[in-house]
C-alpha cells in the first residue's frame, strides 16, 4: 500500500492503494466516483474511458502508480453543469438505451472533439469504434458526435 496524490476533475484526492490498482477501481472503490464503468477489465469495451491530460484512456488498464501528476478527468468532471457540447448533444439526440456504456462514449467523443473540433465522418467512426454499445445505439452516437461538433463549448 502507498499513498497516491491524484488530480481528478481539478480537485486533489489521496488514495491509499496498491500501486498496481487500476485507476478504474481507485475511482470506484476508493474515491466513490462511480460514473466511470467497469465493462471488461482488459481495455476492449471503453466503458471505463477517462481523460488523462486530455487524452482518452482506458482506466481499467491504467495502474494508479503510472498517473503521477497527470490530470484525470472523469465523466463527473467533464463540465460543471452537465452541459458540455457532447453531453448536450447526447441529450438532444437521445442517445442512451440502457446507458451503461454512455459515460465512456461521451468521454471518447469529448477527447476527439478537443483534438479535432470538426471531425470528418471517418474520423468520428475511427474514434468511436473502440467503444462497445451492446444495445446498439451506434447510429445515434455517430449523429450526436456530429451534432456536438457544431456546438460551441460553454
Amino acid at each position: 500500500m502507498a499513498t497516491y496524490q491524484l488530480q481528478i476533475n481539478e480537485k486533489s484526492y489521496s488514495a491509499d492503494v496498491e500501486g498496481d490498482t487500476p485507476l478504474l477501481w481507485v475511482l470506484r472503490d476508493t474515491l466513490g466516483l462511480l460514473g466511470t464503468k467497469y465493462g471488461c477489465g482488459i481495455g476492449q469495451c471503453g466503458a471505463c474511458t477517462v481523460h488523462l491530460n486530455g487524452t482518452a484512456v482506458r482506466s481499467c488498464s491504467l495502474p494508479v502508480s503510472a498517473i503521477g501528476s497527470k490530470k484525470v478527468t472523469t465523466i463527473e468532471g467533464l463540465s460543471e453543469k452537465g452541459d458540455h457540447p457532447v453531453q448536450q448533444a447526447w441529450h438532444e439526440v437521445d442517445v442512451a438505451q440502457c446507458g451503461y456504456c454512455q459515460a465512456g462514449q461521451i468521454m471518447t467523443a469529448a477527447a476527439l472533439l478537443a483534438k479535432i473540433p470538426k471531425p470528418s465522418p471517418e474520423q468520428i467512426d475511427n474514434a468511436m469504434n473502440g467503444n462497445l454499445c451492446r444495445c446498439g445505439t451506434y447510429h445515434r452516437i455517430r449523429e450526436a458526435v456530429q451534432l456536438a461538433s457544431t456546438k460551441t463549448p460553454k
Partner: protein
Amino acid sequence: MITIMETLSKTNRRDFLKLALTSGGGLMLSFSWSVAAATEGLDDAAFAASEVNFNSYLSISPDDVITLFSPNPELGQNIKTSFPMIVAEELDADWTKVKVVQAALDTKKYERQLTGGSGAIPHSWGRLRNAGATARQMLIEAAAKRWNVSASTLSTENGKVIDKSGNRSLTYGELANEAATIPLPAEIKLKDRKDFKIIGKAIKNVENPGLFVGKPMFGLDFYREGMLHAMIQRPVSFGTKIKSVESAAAKAMPGIVEIVQFKNNVAIVGKSTWQIMKARKVLKIEYETDTTIESTPDHDNFFKELLNSKEATVRRKDGDVDTAFKNAAKTIVREYQCPFLPHNPMEPMNFFAHVKADGVELVGPSQTPDMARNEVAKLLGMAPEKISLELTRLGGGFGRRLKADYVLEAAELSSIIKAPVKVTWSREDDMGGGSYRPAVRYRFEAALDARGNLIGYKLRGVGINAGNPTREDNFPSGAVDNLLIDSVEHKSAITTGAWRAPITNFLAYAEQAFLDEVAGEAKLDPVQFRLNLLEKAKKTPVGAIKYDIDRMKTVIETAAEKAGWGKKKDVMQGFSVYFSHRSYVAQVAEVEMKAGKPVLQKIYAVADCGIVINITGALHQVRGGITDGLGHAFYGNVTFKNGEAEQKNFNSYRLIRLKEIPEIEVHFIDNGIDPTGLGEPALPPTGGAVANALFRATGKRIYRQPFIKQDGLEGVNLGAKM
C-alpha cells in the same frame, strides 16, 4: 366511454382501486389489477408463468409535481419514460412537471414487476390509461364541486382543470387534496387517439440528465459504508465439481477478509474489487468430473443423432406429410445451425445482499425481482415479506437478468459471512459462466408440386437444453396442407436461458433463409411466394392460425414498397418477415459488391407494433434490435473445450462495433391497434434478410451462424465500406 367498473369486473376478486392522502398532502391513486392474460403472445413460456398482473401508482403534490412510480425494471427498453407517458396522456398532465421514480419491489402495491418477452407495454396499456383517466376525472369533479358547476362543462389541459365559460382554471396541485375525497368515478372517458399530445411523440429518456453526468444508478454503483466486496470462483468447466481448495495464499493477500466455500463456489471476500481480483489469481482449486463434460465437436455429433432420432416430440401435425412428400414434384432439404451465445449485458452481473436475523435487504439489477425474492426466501427459509428488494437501473439484460442465480449467490454468501456484501462478476465470469442462448440445429424440408405450390413442410428442431426450439404455430403453419413440426432435446451440463427473442432469434433466420430457397425452387419471387402462402392461409386455413394474416401481409407489402423491392440496379436485396412477441416486422437488406466483396449497405424495416408510444424509443428498439441481430448473426460464437467456454472476453468474443452498422430505415404501420411489444420483434428477421441478400450478391447460401465461419464469407467484414 368505458365503464371502469366493467373493466374491473373482468378481473378477479383481489382487484381494487384505492385512494389515500399522501403524507405531504395531495392525491395518491393506487391501482392493483390482477388480470389473467387472455391474449398472451406465443413466446412467453420462456420466462414466466402465464398469469400476468400490472400495477401503477401516481401522486400529485400541492405544488403541481406529478410523481409517477414506474414499477417495472428498466434495462434500456425505455419503459421508465413510456409508462409515465401513457398515464400523463390520459391525465392531461404537463409533461415538464412529471417526475418519474423507480418503484422498489412491492407485491402489495404491484403484482407484476417483470421485464421480459416484450410484454410490459401490451399488458399495461389499458391499465395505465385508466390510471391517468381516473385521476383526471376526479380532479374535474373536485373543481366542479368547488365552482359549483356541472363536471360536464369542464375540460382539462396541461395540468389544469379549465372552466371556459367562467374563464377560470385550477391547477391539479390546487385540486389534489379535494380530489382525494371524491368517490371513485363510475365512468371514465379515455382520449380519442387523434387527441393524443404525448403518446406517439419523441419524449426524451427521463434518465438522460443523470446518465450523461455519471450519476450512480446501476447495480454496480451501489456502495454502502461497511459493505464488503466479493467475487465467486465457479467451476470453469460445465459438468465439474470442486475436489479441493487451497486458499491460504489467497487469504493472506492484502484486503482479503474471508474465503468461503459453498456449493460449488469459492467466494473471495474482501475490502476492494481489485484486491479480490488479485487474490483470486493465487487461489488453487482442483475440480473433478461431476456429470458429463462436453466439447463443441460432441454437440455436432449429438445434432446428427437427434436429427434422425425416432423419439421426437411432435409439436404440430397437419394433414399427411408422408403422402405429400411421396407425391412431390420436387423436395428441398436444408439444415441450419447456431452456436451458444452469452448475453453480455455491458454491466457485468452483480447484486448486493444483507442477510440479518430478522430480514434481508437486496439491491441490484433484476428483470424478475419478485421471482428473485421468492427464491431467496426459499433458500434462506424466510418469509418473502421479510425480504426487501430495491431495483437499480439495469445495464442491459437481454434475458440474462431473468434468472435469479446471481441474487441467490449474493444472499447465500451474506448469510454465511453475516455481513452486507456486493458480489461482482468479472466479464469472464459472465461470458464463461453461462446462461447461454442454446445451440440449435434445424432440418427444414419442403415438398413442391409441379406448379410450385408448397404442399408439404417439415421442421425438426434439435437443441441443447433448448426445450422446444420450434414455434410450431408461427408462419407458414396454417398455410400448408401437410405439415409436421417436431423437436428433440439433448440435456447438457451447459446452462442455457432465454436470450433476447428466445428461440426466434435464430429460428426466424433459418426459416426465412429456407423459404427464400424454396421460393427460388418454385421459380417465384420471394415476396410473392410469401404473399401467396398468406393468401392460401386466408382462403383455406389449415389448423390453428395464431398470427394475423392481414397484419403480416401489410408489413410485407410496405417493406417491399419502401425498399423498391426488385426495382434496383446493382443492389442485391434480401427479404425476411417475422411475427414474434405480438408484433410484425418485415425487413429488406441491401448488399452491394465493392471490389469483389459484398458490403451490407442498408436495411429497411417495417414494424407493426400497433400504436407507437414514444417514437424516439421505438426507433431505438428497432435499430438496436437489428444491430443486435446483425452482429450476432455475423460474429457471435461460444465454443467449448472440455466443458469450458473458449471465449470469455471481448478480445476473443466479437461484438458488432460502430463502423460496422449499415444504414437502417424504419417505418411503423399506423393502424391504431393497441400497442404490442417492441423490445424483441425487430431482431429475429435480420439474419434472414441479410443472408438472403448475401446469396443474391455472392451466389452462396449461409447455413450456419456465425456467418463469418461460412465458406466464402470468412473475409467479409461488415465494416468493409469504411
